[in-house]
């Protein structure tokens, strides 16, 4: 009999055979011991979301961001955001420092700033000018490119690539021009 070869059922079959007094096993008699008992666990309904989120974390996702070849437009887009964020952070920091300076006791006004900049060596001055000029030039010219997209112009891949190179070239030239002023 095939059931005898199944591991784990031998004990159950022996028990069923011992309970059966007649020599023949009638059909469907005491099949309950032949089934394995399933363990269940009570879980509160509120835990269902946690279980679902835990399961979602375990599920695989097909590769997307890691396999796409990075394009220059992607870099330019994130650099546009980064430069804008950096310039805005500088503006916020400057304004809030100007407000907080009398409270803290540190002198912070135009005269002191200009005095401090005059004490810096030449390379630091050019470095600071470059650090301010490049984000400003790049963000402005890339912003113009973004505004042309908002007017639904130059929205093909070729046009985006070409305008991107134009932006890079113009911002490099503008940065050098601003640094030399």
């Amino acid at each position: 009999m095939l059931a005898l070869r199944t591991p784990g059922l031998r004990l159950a079959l022996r028990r069923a055979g011992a309970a059966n007094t007649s020599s023949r096993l009638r059909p469907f008699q005491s099949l309950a011991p032949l089934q394995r008992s399933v363990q269940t666990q009570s879980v509160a309904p509120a835990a269902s979301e946690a279980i679902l989120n835990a399961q979602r974390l375990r599920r695989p996702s097909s590769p997307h961001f890691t396999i796409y070849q990075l394009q220059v437009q992607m870099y330019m887009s994130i650099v546009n955001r980064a430069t804008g964020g950096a310039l805005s952070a500088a503006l916020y920091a400057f304004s809030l420092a100007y407000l907080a300076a009398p409270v803290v006791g540190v002198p912070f006004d135009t005269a002191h700033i200009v005095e401090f900049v005059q004490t810096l060596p030449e390379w630091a001055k050019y470095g600071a000018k470059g650090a301010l000029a490049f984000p400003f030039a790049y963000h402005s010219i890339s912003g113009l490119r973004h505004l042309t997209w908002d007017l639904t112009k130059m929205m093909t891949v070729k046009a985006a690539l070409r305008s991107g190179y134009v932006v890079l070239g113009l911002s490099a030239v503008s940065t050098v021009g601003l640094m030399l002023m």
Partner: protein
Amino acid sequence: MATVSTHAFRRLAAVHGNRPLALAAARFHSGRPSHVAKSPAPRKDTPTYVPGGPILLGTVNDPTTFPPPSKSDGSHHWAFERLLSATLVPLTVSSFVLSSSPYPVLDGLLAVSLVVHSHLGFDQIVVDYLHPRKFPILGRISAWGLRLLTVGTLVGVYQFNTEDVGLTELIKRVWQA
């Protein structure tokens, strides 16, 4: 002598009232023969199937909710942002061209436009990377903290432009220092 076809034809004629065109059409009709009884009406105790609904909510499998569509949050916000960015171009250019002598009103306009433009940009960053749907506490703290910082920056920029020399003059002096 009545054949099978004339017998069927007479039955069809009885149903369609002897109208010639209807009779002719009924002979070629590919639908159910008219002498077959209609199927019984559906039982009332089973719910009627409504394609696309009803949807039972309240489980973990609910779809994500979307904010109610509003023009102030959507199209007007977008248009304002682009218009502000566009006006910043002539503002900065004119501030640069006229930087030889101070113009307080232009300084004020430039400062306010820059701060509002910065706030819109930062808000986009917060919405993109710290959305309240995924970061319920940190996202809300960031959004409201940004608003607080923007208000502080507006006050600071106003103070600087009124008490001190102004933004364009400061940049000009630092650049030529």
